[in-house]
């Protein structure tokens, strides 16, 4: 019950119309790993460096015809397995072809010094890339936080972050009030009364003492230690609060205790 495997007759890929039955000889990798392998190249310079290293070529004296042939083989392979092929790979292929053709031209006899080797620019770029590639590899060896070094950081939840507030001077507040009044004057005929701030302050204190649910004794709002002036201020504050209906005063019958209560909500 043997089944014929058609694998042997299926070409790996078609390159320039020719079926490719075998992988290039310098690819010593199983075919299923090919994609991963090609994917790990970081660009055309990276492939070239790989080819140079692999065959122990001298970077300063690259056999351009040979390297071009191998490079193009890789690029075709990448195309075949539909690897996303950046334009840079094709640009490099063109550049290699150009260098190859220029190498074939006879060198001019005059101006020998100026006549640069067509490979010079490529070699410079390869070396330039290689030094950073090496630097990046070296950096892998540096101790890193979280991988090689662990920071000692102990609990500090008890140390509340300090909230510090901006400083404000009284003059700034007065100036702000002056601004408010100036503007208010412009829009309305705001009547600025001469009023005693102590009454306003006391209004707040009285309001705080009374609440909506319980009546409190009128006389408990006064403190005799404050003297006559204090009693007057409190009394004015209570009258003012009654006037703007924030509190109400209740007396059940004449001569009975007077009670104060916040206006019910």
């Amino acid at each position: 019950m043997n089944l014929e495997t058609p694998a042997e007759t299926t070409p790996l890929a078609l390159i320039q119309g020719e079926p490719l039955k075998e992988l290039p000889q310098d690819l010593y990798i199983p075919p299923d790993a090919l994609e991963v392998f090609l994917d790990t190249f970081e660009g055309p310079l990276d492939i070239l460096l790989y080819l140079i290293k692999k065959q122990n070529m001298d970077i300063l004296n690259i056999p351009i015809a040979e390297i071009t042939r191998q490079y193009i083989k890789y690029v075709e392979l990448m195309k075949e397995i539909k690897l996303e092929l950046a334009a840079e790979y094709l640009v490099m292929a063109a550049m290699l072809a150009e260098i190859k053709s220029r190498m074939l031209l006879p060198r001019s006899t005059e101006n020998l010094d100026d006549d640069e080797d067509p490979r010079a620019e490529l070699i410079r770029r390869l070396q330039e890339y290689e030094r950073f590639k090496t630097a990046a590899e070296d950096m892998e060896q540096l101790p890193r936080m979280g991988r090689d070094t662990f920071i000692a950081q102990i609990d500090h939840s008890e140390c509340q972050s300090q909230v510090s507030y901006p400083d404000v001077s009284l003059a700034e507040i007065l100036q702000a009030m002056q601004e408010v009044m100036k503007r208010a004057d412009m829009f309305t005929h705001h009547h600025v009364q001469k009023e005693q701030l102590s009454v306003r302050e006391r209004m707040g204190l009285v309001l705080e003492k009374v609440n909506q649910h319980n009546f409190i004794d009128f006389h408990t709002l006064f403190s005799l230690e404050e003297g006559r002036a204090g009693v007057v201020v409190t009394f004015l504050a209570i009258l003012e609060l009654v006037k703007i209906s924030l509190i109400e005063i209740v007396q059940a019958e004449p001569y009975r205790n007077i009670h104060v209560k916040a206006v019910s909500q």
Partner: protein
Amino acid sequence: MKLSDQKLKNIVEASLMAADSPLSVEQLLNLFEEDNRPSRFAIKSSVEQLQTEYENKGIEIIQVASGFRMQVKAELSAWVSNLWEEKPGKYSRALMETLAIIIYRQPVTRGEIEDVRGVTVSSAIIKTLIEREWIRVLGHRDVPGKPAMFGTTRQFLDYFNLKSLDQLPTLAAIKDFDCV
């Protein structure tokens, strides 16, 4: 190879310091390979030794529900907490004006402040002033929506070294005041 007591103690110390949360004896035991794992007793005794060593230092090892934790000693928090001190910015003009209106018009609702200023008063401003403990809610006005009425606090007076609001100039005086 058995770990020396010193090395065991150092591993426990370093782990407690590096960990993001308290470590139980089990968690500490699990740091070691099975064939090299110290006893529970050895771990506990390392922790105890460390606690003694840190007695006169700036940090301490305490035991909480989920294990041992290293923390800054409470007596140093006054200094250490300065690490996270936020630099104060300046208060906005809107805040200063709101404060001024509350001082002079208390008890006053947000709506009334807006009437005077002619613009909306943001909740953030009211929140800042309440957090700073310069204003407080005195009660609620008996109108639809029951808006809160704000007034100044004792802390406000203390900050500005005032005995009472009376010591502030009157509105009439401010009006004629030649401000800087």
